[in-house]
């Protein structure tokens, strides 16, 4: 099979949801970085659209529209605040040329909870040595939310906050299969944008010493949105 065909088949696998979570995350990093791959994915969405076209239409009940109206037109404002954080993440991590491709794909790449959460105030995009990106988001009230982070090896991922010039502060153990939530210690919230988040691999139950004991697999500064 030619390289083009291989790329198209891979795009088909992606669109059909055949990849497991890790493969999908890996593919998505490449996808965000390369507009050629992005075009291939959209081309396959077009190619498979016939399946959706063949399904007979079903009118949705009124309550769905009411719910949509309530959520997007709430408080009389014509448009709720746009989630601009992906523009910033894309610019910071992947470079300016791919912002458009990245943001176009954001609608079908990310876990829905990441996109529908309006209160994220700070974000750190942690790029690991194998180029996987994981986000840590912090709300206005100091709640930290991370994405699932499967490790290929033994050990558990532990999230740390690094205040400027200080020792790492443990934030919590990250779930490998689901989003996790933690509370930022209140005394550290003022230092968010001058500090960094880091992830280390620790034994079951987390670091026994209160400081990272295993390899640090990613570090990222915190940006304010």
């Amino acid at each position, binding site marked *: *099979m030619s390289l083009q*065909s291989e790329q*198209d*088949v891979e795009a*088909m*696998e992606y*669109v*059909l*949801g*055949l*990849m*497991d979570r890790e493969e999908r995350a890996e593919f998505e990093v490449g996808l965000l970085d390369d507009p050629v791959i992005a*075009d291939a994915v*959209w081309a396959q*969405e*077009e*190619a*498979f*659209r*016939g*399946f*959706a*076209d*063949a*399904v*007979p*239409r*079903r*009118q*949705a*009940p009124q*309550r*769905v*529209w009411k*719910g*949509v109206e309530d*959520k*997007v*037109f709430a408080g009389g404002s*014509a*448009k*709720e605040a*746009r*989630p601009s954080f992906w523009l910033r993440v894309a610019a910071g991590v992947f470079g300016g040329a791919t912002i*458009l*491709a990245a*943001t*176009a*794909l*954001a*609608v*079908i790449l990310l*876990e*829905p909870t990441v*996109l*529908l959460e309006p209160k994220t105030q700070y974000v750190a995009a942690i790029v690991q040595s194998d180029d996987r990106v994981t986000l840590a988001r912090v709300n206005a009230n100091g709640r930290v939310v991370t994405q699932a982070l499967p490790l290929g090896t033994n050990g558990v991922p532990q999230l740390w906050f690094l205040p400027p010039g200080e020792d790492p502060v443990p934030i919590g153990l990250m779930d490998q299969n689901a989003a996790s939530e933690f509370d930022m210690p209140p005394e550290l919230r003022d230092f968010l944008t001058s500090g960094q988040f880091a992830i280390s691999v620790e034994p079951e139950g987390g670091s026994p010493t209160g400081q990272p004991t295993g390899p640090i697999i990613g570090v990222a500064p915190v940006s304010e949105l």
Partner: protein
Amino acid sequence: MVEDELERLLSRTALGDRRAFATLYDRTNGKLFAVCLRILQDRVEAEDALQDVYIKIWRYAERYAASRARPMTWMIAIARNLAIDRLRARKSPAATLSAAETVADGALRPDQKAMAKGEAKRLLDCIGGLANGDGRMIRVAYFGGVTYAALAERDGVPLGTVKSRMRRALGELKRCLAP
């Protein structure tokens, strides 16, 4: 052309035009609700999912332009992605696969295939031309988001075997679809 109108409505939605968004909803909810229902097989879940779909469309309307897809294709991708995520969240992989297969069996009556036009018809013809249930498996994947791992587990075959078989089928499909 319908797609031209949808494109116009999406652009206006991106500018915050509520009426355009309401019109867009009227024009498209039939197809997107049907897709959510087909995937989730549950009215209430499909209604909840559809709400999230339109909220996402509202929030990301301005991102459409960079996608190079037709507007309805873009919206279907959003709907399918959201619905499959919900499906995966609520069921074990094995249960998801078996639900998806039930759906696929009922999915394509001969009259529906006959009604399909243009590219849709070509897809269905090419799918029908694949051997050994490969076409059905591809359709199941489209509506069910089943992974290679789930397929391998169900059939009791190595992951590598499932992957090569599917990749061969997808290659054939691609050659059939190519103009």
